[in-house]
């Protein structure tokens, strides 16, 4: 409740949406190449939500916000793969060491900033968090729609090819 203003969602969801928004920004600007290690780490971010999301482990606001941020980064990493493969020649984009550092630094800063703004920020922090959360929610929605649309398009192509083979 920064500045006495209620945020639009809980600690975890705020972390999720802000994390997703920031992660998407990094993917656009840094053109992150998804190495196996990169995907494994982000897969862990997704799995981590299971024990914390179902309250199998004790947690406070800080841990809820952090798990939300990491989950957001994990979601964007996975959902970015297919649209980015279609729209850019990512084979030429190398994950340079400096780019990797920027990405992980950005993740660390997000982990620090979200709870800090939520706990000790004023009204401007509340507006910032709300705005970033809204942006992150839009990003996730857009990614979900893009992936769903591409999946439908792929299925349609496969169906047409199969039909053509059967008719031939």
């Amino acid at each position, binding site marked *: 409740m920064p500045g006495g203003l209620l945020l639009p969602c809980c600690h975890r969801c705020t972390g999720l949406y802000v994390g997703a928004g920031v992660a998407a920004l990094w993917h656009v600007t840094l053109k992150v190449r998804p190495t196996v290690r990169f995907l494994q780490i982000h897969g862990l971010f997704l799995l981590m939500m299971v024990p914390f999301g179902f309250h199998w482990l*004790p947690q406070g606001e800080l841990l809820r916000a952090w798990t939300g941020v990491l989950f957001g980064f994990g979601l964007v990493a996975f959902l970015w793969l297919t649209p980015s493969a279609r729209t850019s020649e990512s084979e030429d984009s190398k994950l340079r060491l400096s780019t990797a550092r920027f990405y992980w630094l950005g993740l660390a800063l997000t982990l620090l900033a979200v709870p800090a703004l939520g706990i000790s920020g004023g009204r401007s922090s509340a507006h910032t968090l709300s705005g970033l959360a809204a942006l992150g929610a839009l990003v996730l929605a857009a990614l979900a729609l893009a992936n769903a649309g591409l999946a439908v398009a792929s299925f349609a192509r496969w169906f047409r090819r199969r039909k053509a083979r059967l008719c031939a």
Partner: protein
Amino acid sequence: MTTHTRRNSLLAAIGLAALLIYILACTSFSPDDSKVAYPAFDAKSGAVCVSVYDRKNGTSDEIFAVASIKDAQPSNREPCLLRPQWLPDGRHILVTFPEEKSLTLAMLSYGVREPVRLFSLPELNDAAPLLMMPLPIISSRVFFSVEEKSVARVDLVTGEIQTREFTNTVNVYSSADGRALLVIEEVKGDEPGTVLSRMNPETLALQPVMRWTNQVADGGFLAFNRDGSKVAFIEERGEGLSVTVVGGGKVEVSRPIELRDEKLAFSPVAAFSPKDDCVYAAFRRAPEAETNASYGIVEFPLSGAPPRWTTLLTASGKGKGEAVMFFQPTLSHDGRTLAVASTYLLLQDQTIKPEDCALFLVDLSTPHRRVTKVKIQLPSERPSLTLN
């Protein structure tokens, strides 16, 4: 075309599934209205206890009992005032009860194996009035007013206590969704009135929201809507009473209550419907011409439609007027069910029949307001609850 197409597709599907599961499962992280915690009596000792009623399978489990023994004689056992409240995570129940000049907070786990945590807060001259209204619980911290002009915050995990003093008399509440902390200040002096403020749960600082000067009636109720932007109360209007709703600093609704030669009193706890179109309260009606009183639930539609009175039990006598204080309703989060237990009501009004000792669940979604009565077994010797 990338050679990782299949991998990307699979990972994207996993990402979509994870997002979908998160969105769907998020609603199960908070209390899901499937269980009701209420005061009952321990079958073996006759002491007041907390039971949890499972609405899905229709069974009750006793989870906590407190026997306040004044001396060695069991007949001198005094019933304890217990207030059970679910924590927002839906896996813990906070039971609050007064003991002499202290307040005890018991954190019980439900459905998980965790130790019981007891916190005893001493040096409280009069702890019982603190339990007249539900205590606000934000995350794992509970808030309450102390000595009229202070607010205390207790961390239910660490036991850390923080207090803050104010100039005016303050009372702390929570919004209906349990996410906002609200404070009512009674301002005296040149510009007297009642000020509603939001309290920052971290710093305990106040941010005024609105003010009113309406005369709040004794024996009335106070209710906040879901986000704490509106407050409903019973107002004294000349010779009569009205249900008044204040929002945005002005009176939004004022509906007179028709009284027919009767004494009408309400439980201090009431509830807004989720759509802010109705206020639910518990009542006691004692017509002058009759020798008995009735208790039940009243719905005040804010649209102007007449109130709807649902009697749940009738006493054979008039008992004590203040007994209705203990007949406190709780509205489910989905707004479809009103729950009220008559446990303490029977201890206050000895003219109520033992078979009316029950947890009443009023289905607000049915036109005729179907009532489910979950029997509470009274001890063979009905104790009496006396207030100082």
